[in-house]
């Protein structure tokens, strides 16, 4: 959360010669990040990002406290000044207020005070300017006091018109189902169960505690008596209510991060002073202060050895003491190198362990004063996961074969699933989607690629691929079967081009033994007549086929689309960089072409396989020509040991002819 504070205000609490620019630089390096300085009139406004662990810095005084520790380390004297307050004297006749807190956990500390004789008027100019520099509208002196002190001390407070509280009675409790409140901004808000609220003597809800007051009890121009509320609330409850209502105020942002209950007293006394000075008001009641369980002081051991081992340099114990004390810690030497450190109350929530103290010392010492060193390499237990190198190799191959890599969202729309004939129930669904297009975790990459083909209709021939995880569910309490897919898509009739990609890619992965199954398998999205499965060791590693026409129509794609969809898991399990060495034959091969006529629709794959199996002397069988039902094969015969003669080849040739005739009813048509 960012806060805006004026330089002049900061200097009310810290006396230093450092310029705003020097303050920005040192605060950013050692504490909270100053994102910007803006000149406003004669003043400067700092825009500071405060981290969630440091709600104590969400105030002018809190930042002054930080600077008091930081500036002396960078060569500037800096003195932290006190906060001007009024003393709270007993009043002779106190106006009544009956307070009941139903559950003490809701409100660790409750204080209130009533002022009489309040004159409502505009705030002094300086005050109005400072508040507005911080981005809050100046309204009147009473409301401004609560905002001014929230900014100055980090303690949000609320003012009621005392006369609007029925029966001078308040019950702080959890909201019940169905209750609502009209807040100061005029909005009617339903109250989530468990919200902290206050009801008055008539049972009206008059405050949405810690977030915004009720309209029915607000201070207005005719207010004479003001009830001032300075409290702390259970941060978790405030946060839940804000989330449920999608409504957050400056006060709520502070309460949900935790406000220091020990700071309440100071804030009350400071407010009393301002009520007197700015409103001419008079204290008209005793202080109500319900604070049954004040936190105990926290003590933490500090060891110089731990500090040095964590920062990598030696920082003297005297420096450590100085830094911690300037930050408000108290230290007591235990041994020469260890301290007993007491945590100041405003840091009680964020300082717990010795590492927290190391941070305090190291940041004020200055991270920029620590050396840059590389961590020593002692030994490495991890073995390199080869998957990453294979993935890179595949991507490179595809790039050089003319494919463009795409990267699409893992989440898809319901519409896309339906277009692709997929069922929503087979997908994990986002409970709080951001848009309708990103709702289901995909179980295939193909629809995403089809969408790209549809969107880029003006491109001529498209060749794309994506390598990404899919997320098929495995039950309601088990993570999905998250696994890597490689999907390749090409526009047009590209069956044999993509088959060629598979046939080139697999050997690149060291997979020599693979086969393509015969057609007629039913697979989602694919045309039944143009599809094959790729098998490695009998296991399917992917499919190749044409997208069926109905789906193309739904996506509005005019051309045909061919896809090669591979499972990287099993594929890379079989991948190997190992290559087998075979000596090259010294004797030239004898090459001849054989033509056969086959019955219609004879699959050529098994024919080639049959020829190869005839003899180990047949080194290569290529399909070189196809005309109608005639196929011409070029066959290379070669021996490692000698020159082959026609006498040796003749029986092989006869065996081929006989086998193809027997198995495939092939008629030999020619030998060349």
């Amino acid at each position, binding site marked *: 959360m960012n806060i805006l504070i004026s330089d002049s205000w900061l200097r009310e609490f810290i006396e230093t010669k450092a310029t705003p620019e020097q303050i920005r630089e040192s605060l950013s390096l050692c504490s909270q990040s100053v994102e910007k300085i803006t000149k406003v009139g004669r003043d400067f406004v700092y825009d500071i990002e405060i981290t969630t662990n440091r709600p104590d810095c969400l105030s002018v005084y809190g930042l002054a406290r930080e600077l008091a520790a930081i500036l002396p380390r960078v060569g500037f004297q800096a003195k932290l000044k006190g906060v001007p307050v009024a003393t709270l004297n007993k009043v002779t006749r106190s106006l009544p207020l009956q307070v009941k807190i139903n559950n003490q956990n809701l409100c660790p500390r409750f204080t209130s005070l009533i002022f009489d004789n309040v004159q409502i008027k505009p705030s002094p100019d300086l005050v109005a300017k400072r508040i507005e520099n911080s981005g809050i509208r100046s309204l009147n002196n009473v409301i401004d006091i609560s905002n001014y002190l929230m900014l100055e001390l980090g303690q949000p407070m609320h003012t009621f018109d005392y006369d609007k509280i029925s029966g001078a009675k308040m019950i702080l409790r959890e909201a019940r189902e169905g209750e609502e409140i009209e807040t100061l901004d005029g909005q009617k808000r339903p109250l989530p169960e468990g919200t902290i609220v206050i009801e008055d003597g008539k049972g009206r809800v008059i405050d949405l505690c810690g977030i915004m007051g009720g309209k029915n009890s607000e201070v207005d121009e005719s207010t004479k008596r003001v009830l001032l509320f300075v409290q702390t609330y259970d*941060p978790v409850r405030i946060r839940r209510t804000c989330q449920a209502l999608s409504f957050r105020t400056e006060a709520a942002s502070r309460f*949900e991060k935790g406000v220091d209950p020990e700071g309440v007293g100071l804030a009350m006394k400071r407010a009393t002073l301002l009520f007197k000075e700015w409103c001419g008001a008079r204290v008209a009641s005793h202080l109500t202060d319900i604070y049954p369980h004040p936190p105990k002081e926290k003590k933490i051991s500090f060891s110089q050895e731990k500090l040095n081992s964590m920062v990598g340099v030696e920082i003297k114990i005297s420096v450590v003491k100085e830094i911690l004390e300037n930050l408000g810690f108290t230290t007591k030497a235990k041994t020469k190198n260890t301290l007993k450190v007491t945590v100041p109350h405003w840091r009680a929530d964020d300082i717990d362990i010795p590492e927290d103290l190391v941070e305090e010392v190291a940041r004020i010492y200055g991270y920029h004063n620590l050396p840059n060193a590389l961590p020593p*390499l002692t030994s490495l237990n991890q073995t390199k996961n080869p998957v990453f190198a294979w993935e890179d190799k595949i991507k490179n191959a595809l790039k050089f074969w003319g494919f463009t890599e795409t990267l699409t969202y893992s989440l898809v729309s319901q519409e896309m699933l339906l277009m692709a004939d997929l069922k929503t129930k087979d997908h994990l669904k986002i409970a709080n989607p*951001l848009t309708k297009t990103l709702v289901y975790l995909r179980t295939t990459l193909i629809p995403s690629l089809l969408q790209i083909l549809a969107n880029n209709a003006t491109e001529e021939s498209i060749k794309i691929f994506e390598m990404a995880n899919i997320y098929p569910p495995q039950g309601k309490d088990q993570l999905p079967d998250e696994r890597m897919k490689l999907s390749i898509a090409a526009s047009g009739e590209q069956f044999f081009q993509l088959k060629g990609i598979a046939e080139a890619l697999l050997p690149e992965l060291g997979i020599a033994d693979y086969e393509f199954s015969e057609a007629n398998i039913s697979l989602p999205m694919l045309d039944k007549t143009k599809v094959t499965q790729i098998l490695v060791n009998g296991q399917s590693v992917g499919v190749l086929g044409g997208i069926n026409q109905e789906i193309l129509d739904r996506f509005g794609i005019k051309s045909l689309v061919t896809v090669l969809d591979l499972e990287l898991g099993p594929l890379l399990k079989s991948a190997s960089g190992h290559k087998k060495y075979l000596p090259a034959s010294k004797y030239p091969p004898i090459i001849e072409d054989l033509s056969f006529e086959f019955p219609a629709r004879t699959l050529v794959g098994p024919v080639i396989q049959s020829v190869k199996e005839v003899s180990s002397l047949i080194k290569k069988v290529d399909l070189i020509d196809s005309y109608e039902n005639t196929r011409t094969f070029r066959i290379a015969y070669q021996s490692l040991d000698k020159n082959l003669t026609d006498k040796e080849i003749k029986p092989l040739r006869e065996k081929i002819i006989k086998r193809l005739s027997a198995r495939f009813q092939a008629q030999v048509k020619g030998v060349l």
Partner: protein
Amino acid sequence: MIKAQITNLKNEAIGEILEINEEKTLEEIRAKFLGRSGKLNQLTKEIPKLAPEERKNIGNLISETKRTIEDALWQAKDKFRKEKNKEEWLDVTAPGIKPPEGHLHLVTEAIREISAIFEGLGFQRSRYPEVEWDWYAFEGLNMAENHPARDVWETFFIEDFENEKYGKGILTPHTSSGQLREMEKYRPPIRMLNIAKCYRRQSDMSHAPMFYQFEGLVIDKNINISHLKGTIDYFTKQYFGPDRKSRIRPYHFQFTEPSFEVDVTCLICQGKGCRTCKQGWMEIGGSGMVHPLVLKNGGIDPNLYSGFAFGWGVERVLMMKYGIEDIRLLFEGDLRFLKQF
């Protein structure tokens, strides 16, 4: 008698050579007159029959004739070649025949670059679930439910999906969810590099609901803040250039203590200060010393081991480098965009 035969042969050959108009006929003429069974060789066979005093003269004459015919053949060949060169013409400025042109995604290129840098320091790449349990993404990283620090990670939840032990199912909003998984898998020393898709409920020019982060995690004995600084500075100089500087500033994450924000000198103004940076520095990521509770949750004794972690978005630096204004362009699949890289 034989002399005249030789002279006639010479004239006949030269006559034929002068008359031909096709280069390939030259070889025929060569064979006819100079070949193994050519006309000149026939005459050579007559030499032994001559008187001894004549043999030498005739021998010389035959050799001379052979040279003359060869010269004539060469000249004719040369003439043809010159004519041919005059006809042939190659436009060397015409475009070459290119191999097919493909493109890798910018994010792939960036991941490779980042991996290579950290692999040089002994980091190993890991990969952990994108659909993850609350424990690994939040609770185990010292961020209980309802912790305000969680606001930063605008998280996608998965409907009707919860594990008794590990809590609700989410899309991991940061690569830090890999920290505990890495510790469960390996004992120190650990040098992990986890580059992965992350998801957050936000979408604008500089935020996409899906994006990539990379996370480094080092756990060993005596690991300190200086080691973190040195590692980040090494990366900065390797990735952004040797003139870049890096620094760390205090920040807060629940899973590191202390925590830091990492700045590098601005790529645009070289650290002088400009509109896009903060006084010459750009925030690029978060880092810190692994919180002892996180080590404990990962089964590592924080009294023996310490570590640091850092992580930031891959796209952000890419966008700076290429001047891409809208991060969502990276995921839209517009080929006119993808084919530029």
